[in-house]
């Protein structure tokens, strides 16, 4: 089961928005209606006139908007196959055709109040909807660029955060410490390290099977347990996990690394990390909880590189469909992530190279 597809040439910025994403749909609805409000404002004679104008515009806008959303939702798999510029063209043209069709079919609603130049009316609506469509596409493009720029900038930093030097050198040192007396454990440790580093150095935007991420996390924890011995305990709780679920790679492992570095290591007696993974409906939920020193005893604030990187990647991949929550208690720290249950990579299309 090798579903971690390679996307060497594939750039997140080169993709249309995912029209099946709730967040994208919400944004489209909000922005189009916002523009309608602006239009109503510019036409109105006074404040009292605004709601009425708005009503008129919304009555015209809504049928086109909803039909377009439905159409795009249906066409998403096909749009995924296209180059970005082809996709833009396809979306804009279908919006134009859709507007025309509705204009002529829905007759009454769109019949002009004054003029009788039906061709002018039709052209006006087409121009208006194509403009709104283009503005939305530009907006999504800019948004993706902004998010992935952050991703790009953060990458080097994050690579460093993922392979925390502290972890790298301490682990090598620990392997050296057991190599004479327990050569076999030392071998396993080096193999685990190789897996971990291979993953850390691959593209951060890939989705990988959930099971693979779990396995990697366990390898990581085994390395830490070699160093810390009894002080590090882990409780896994897994419920209804689908075999085919995919998640962004290195989503779980950095959370565990934070839990070890900031939570367990400073505790003299160590402690237990609780990892809970489960599926509820169309959602996967991840929770990592660790005990930590009370703030008064000099708990140090971690750098938030790993966490903010996870948040950015979730935003880029799932928009509002992923949730992220951190709870800092007096003597515990808890991160909860909910993301849609997907079985293939969303949105980012594959392109032959």
């Amino acid at each position, binding site marked *: 089961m090798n579903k971690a597809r390679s996307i060497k040439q594939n750039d997140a910025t080169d993709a249309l928005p995912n029209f099946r994403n709730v967040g994208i749909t919400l944004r489209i609805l909000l922005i189009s209606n916002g523009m309608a409000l602006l239009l109503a404002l510019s036409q109105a004679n006074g404040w009292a006139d605004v709601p009425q104008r708005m009503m008129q515009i919304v009555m015209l806008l809504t049928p086109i908007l909803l039909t377009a959303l439905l159409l795009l939702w249906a066409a998403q798999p096909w749009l995924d196959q296209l180059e970005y510029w082809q996709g833009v063209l396809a979306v804009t043209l279908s919006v134009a055709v859709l507007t025309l069709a509705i204009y002529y079919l829905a007759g009454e609603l769109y019949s002009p109040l004054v003029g009788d130049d039906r061709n002018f009316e039709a052209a006006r609506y087409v121009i208006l909807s194509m403009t709104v469509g283009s503005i939305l596409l530009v907006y999504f493009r800019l948004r993706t660029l902004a998010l992935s720029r952050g991703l790009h900038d953060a990458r080097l930093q994050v690579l460093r955060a993922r392979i925390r*030097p*502290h972890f*790298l*050198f*301490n682990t*090598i*040192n*620990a*392997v*050296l*410490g*057991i190599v*004479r*007396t327990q050569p076999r454990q030392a071998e396993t440790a080096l193999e685990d390290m190789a897996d971990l580093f291979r993953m850390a150095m691959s593209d951060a935007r890939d989705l990988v099977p959930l099971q693979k991420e779990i396995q990697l996390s366990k390898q990581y924890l085994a390395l830490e347990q*070699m*160093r*810390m*011995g009894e002080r590090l305990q882990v409780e896994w709780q897994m419920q209804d996990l689908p075999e085919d679920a995919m998640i962004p790679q290195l989503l779980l492992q950095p959370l565990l690394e934070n839990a070890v570095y900031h939570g367990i*290591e*400073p*505790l*003299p007696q160590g402690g237990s990390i609780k990892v809970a993974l489960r599926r509820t409906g169309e959602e996967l939920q991840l929770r990592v909880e660790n005990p930590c020193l009370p703030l*008064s*005893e*000099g708990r*140090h604030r971690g750098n938030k590189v790993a966490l903010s990187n996870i948040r950015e990647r979730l935003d880029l991949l799932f928009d509002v469909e992923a949730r992220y929550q951190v709870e800092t208690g007096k003597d515990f720290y808890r991160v909860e992530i909910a993301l849609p249950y997907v079985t293939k990579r969303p949105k980012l299309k594959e392109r032959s190279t």
Partner: protein
Amino acid sequence: MSGNQQALSVFIVDDEPPARNRLRDVLNDCSEKLPLKIVGEASNGSEALDMLTELPVDVVLLDIRMPQMDGIELSQHLLKLPKPPVIIFTTAYDEYAIKAFELHAVDYLLKPIRQARLVEALNRARNAVPVKNEVLQELSREPRRNLSSHERGKIHLIPIGQVLYLRAELKYVTVRTVEREYLIEESLAALEKEFAARFVRIHRNCLVAKEAIEGFVRGGEDNAESAGWMVKLKGLDELLAISRRQQHIVKEFG
């Protein structure tokens, strides 16, 4: 007597068992080139302090990042021993500490430790003098978790959270906890600076723990020096006088 013939006694402090293993291995490898004996090891600061009080050694190989009490703090307490050992810090990765070590020419080893580098450091340690406390203070990023008091050959650790007040008396500072008093040889001004977040000055010669303040009572004599206000601390019957200059704290904490 030439020190070169006598075996160097070495003590290891590190919280990670494999790291201690590794150091033992490398030290054993070194012993061919350099007479030395490993006299003990500890996995945390207070254990190390107890053992080293009983058993003076020449050199301590000391990990910096450890839970509860880090290596820098432990080295500060070790300085109070009658014959403080020479300390060689070890760290896997600590940019901050390494910069500070370079700056103050304090010896340190990077993990994984190479045999040649260890021999070099041990040879230097033979003639080295212990690092000065002021340097160690500059090395530490955060306040100590404990104060330490040397009393009849033993070092007492006093967790800073238990200290109710610190009062300067002649050349000592009295450290008061609910149970008892200790004497330490430090300056009140330095303590005030180090623990600024925890203590507030109520008098020229006295700092009290903010958390321990229970209330204020009028009772002292009101004169040029004293404002007549006294502090009552939790778990302590004794009342402490607030000076006229510091009486604003009655408003702040009252």
